[in-house]
């Protein structure tokens, strides 16, 4: 019984409440292929990436401010597998983001970076915004929240 409990706890241990860990990019790809009336904002970041950490609050604010509207934020961590327990989890526990978090562990990067966006050279932070067939990719950090919001609002208005 104790063993079962341990397994249960350990199985849950990777990330906090329902946050997904993708071993392979192919498991994650369907998320990027959704075509509906929702605006998806997918940010690629990592705990070791200082400019990423700086801009995470903008995505958190976006997630909170647009709650109940058709905007979905997902923060995809690029942290190494060996850092999930030691770095990513403590970071998430400390920061308590309400925006959904995922971890993508597939380090065969050349195989999938282009599938996120053909322009992506591979540096982070990077952000993909998509809405139906419209896609916008930003391989840089946002300097403030307004700069991010500016990209979302026209998409909402166009509906």
């Amino acid at each position, binding site marked *: 019984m104790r063993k079962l409990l341990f397994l249960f706890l350990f199985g849950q241990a990777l990330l906090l409440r329902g946050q997904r860990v993708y071993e392979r990019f192919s498991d994650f790809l369907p998320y990027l292929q959704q075509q509906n009336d929702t605006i998806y904002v997918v940010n*690629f970041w*990592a705990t*070791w*990436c200082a*400019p990423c950490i700086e801009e995470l609050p903008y995505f958190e604010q976006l997630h909170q401010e647009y709650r109940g509207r058709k905007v979905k934020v997902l923060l995809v961590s*690029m942290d*190494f*597998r*060996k850092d999930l327990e030691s770095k990513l989890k403590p970071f998430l526990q400390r920061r308590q983001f309400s925006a959904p978090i995922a971890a993508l562990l597939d*380090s*065969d*990067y*050349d*195989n999938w*970076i*282009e599938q996120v966006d053909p*322009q*992506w*050279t*591979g*540096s*982070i*932070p990077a952000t993909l915004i998509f809405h139906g067939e419209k896609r916008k990719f*930003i*391989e*840089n*950090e946002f*300097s403030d929240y307004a700069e991010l919001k500016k990209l979302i609002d026209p998409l909402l208005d166009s509906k």
Partner: protein
Amino acid sequence: MKTALRTCLLALFAFFFVLEKAQGQNGRTPQPVIMPGDSAPDFSLKAVSGKIVSLKDYKQAKGFLVIFTCNTCPYAQAYEGRIIDLHNKYAPLGYPVIAINPNDPTVQPGDNFQAMQDRAKERKYPFEYCLDEGQKVFPKYGASRTPHVFLLDKTRRVRYVGAIDDSVDDETQVTRRYVEEAIAAVMAGKDPDPSLTRAIGCGIKVKR
């Protein structure tokens, strides 16, 4: 006539491609990229050894592994040992590693010249480790992250651009050694395949 038309179209396409690349990155950092087949610019950079390093001074070299890397990036750190191994294996064959730190030390103090000297000494770098002072060199190469490898041949033509291999976090899981495969191809008089790979890495630190 048909050929002329095709050339025109190709030129036009290349022009827009370059334009797109030049604008890239949110319009903030212009990035003209050199690609496999292009000629790589020489440079003159101060290395932690105290030398001023230029490609033209390597009279015996058959090529170069110009690697943009740094002290602070976890990807660069994960690859540090493999970069040392590359130099130890390929410098004797005529392909030395020349490492360039492209980060602005005022943005990333851990990448200042003193810190570079300390790390190179501590880790016993066998290759030249240069600072891209004033950040003039990395934009000419179109390096966007650390580590970012450019394999040049004897004539300074770019033959491969990209990652070292396909498994940064676990060397035992490597299935493709891109750089080693590319050097082997060049040595055999062939074109590397792939000649361009992408990898996640730390964005180069630039003052905003």
